[in-house]
């Protein structure tokens, strides 16, 4: 499926909010889903990632949507990272540098070693989930409250155990 058809499919799913799972098998498709998650979110975006793969989270569309999302003062983006091994010129990090409604935390080594998956959620009913963090295979759904609720709980659990870092420190 070409990127435009995939984008249309994701937009439709985001509009319908039926909770149907959508397969995601490449970084380009992942970027489209992440864009749509930012677009769909009304207040919270939670992101649990390795080191913010620039091919997904640095894509121009994603950065643009993140900027739009963060332009509302009542929106908040929390990023939980395994490592800090990314370039300071990462487009998303640069974008977030001056934002007050972004929080970043780095998880302890013990959790990182045991963690198998990555995910991102938007509010309480949209998510993208990678069951194996080394692979690009993922599933996304718009309008699935139980699953998003589960992932949000996991996020909050790990967040509480992680060390928050000032956003500015990441952009230096």
């Amino acid at each position: 499926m070409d990127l435009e058809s995939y984008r249309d499919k994701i937009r439709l799913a985001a509009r319908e909010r039926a909770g149907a799972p959508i397969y995601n098998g490449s970084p380009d498709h992942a970027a489209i889903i992440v864009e749509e998650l930012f677009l769909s979110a009304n207040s919270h975006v939670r992101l649990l990632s390795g080191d913010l793969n620039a091919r997904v989270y640095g894509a121009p569309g994603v950065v643009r949507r993140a900027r739009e999302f963060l332009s509302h003062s009542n929106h908040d983006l929390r990023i939980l990272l395994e490592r800090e091994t990314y370039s300071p010129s990462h487009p998303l990090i640069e974008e977030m540098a001056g934002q007050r409604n972004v929080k970043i935390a780095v998880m302890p080594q013990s959790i990182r070693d045991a963690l198998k998956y990555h995910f991102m959620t938007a509010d309480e009913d949209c998510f993208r989930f990678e069951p194996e963090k080394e692979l690009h295979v993922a599933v996304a759904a718009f309008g699935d409250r139980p699953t998003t609720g589960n992932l949000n709980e996991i996020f909050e659990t790990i967040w509480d155990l992680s060390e928050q870092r000032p956003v500015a420190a990441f952009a230096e």
Partner: protein
Amino acid sequence: MAVLPSPAIELITGLEPIAGAGLAINVAYLALDRFRYRRRIEPVAEEKCVLNDEQDAFEGFHDLDPVKELKWLARRVSSKDYVPRGRAAAAYRYGFRKHQDIFFAGSAASMCAFTVATGVALSVGRWEWAHFLTISPFPGVLFYACLASMIIPVGVVLAGRRCANWGRERIEHCTNQVAISLGNLAKQAQPPVGVERREPLPPAPRPAGSRPLTAEEASRLAAELAQRRREHRDS
């Protein structure tokens, strides 16, 4: 040089129109990309088979029927290991999966070209070794073979289109099934080993003596808030 009596040669030269048409149809089938039906299925399925056999999205992932079917469509597994059910699957397996259609069209085009060339050769007194073709039953065999070469590609095109549509539908179906399996993983995900799941936060306690708002009170409050917001914006 032995020159055959003309009625015998005419048996072969008379096949030229039908052999020429068969040749044209089969060459067109071989040359045009639109008739490469396997290419409409295999790369799309390959794109979806993003995992190697060593990579497991979860235990048992590679044993799922939709995953096996995607691999079969991508020709990562042989028909000995897995074959989808149904007539379309059988048609694809025996007609297109190993380029059988191209082999058939190539053979038919060669046969038609040979018939045309033989007719011309015999009419100008060449290819003496081919004289046996003027003897019954060979002219009849060549006629029906050329006729089949002309008609069968039409059937192959119709079957190829159906197979391509079937393949796309199956890829979509299998992909959705894989997504459902992955979605279940997300639903059942647990915090990493050794991390206790945080208790869900209890709802905030209601102040003593308070009661829930009635619908009327809630709408009045909402209107009041909206009014205050407007005033704040205007100021």
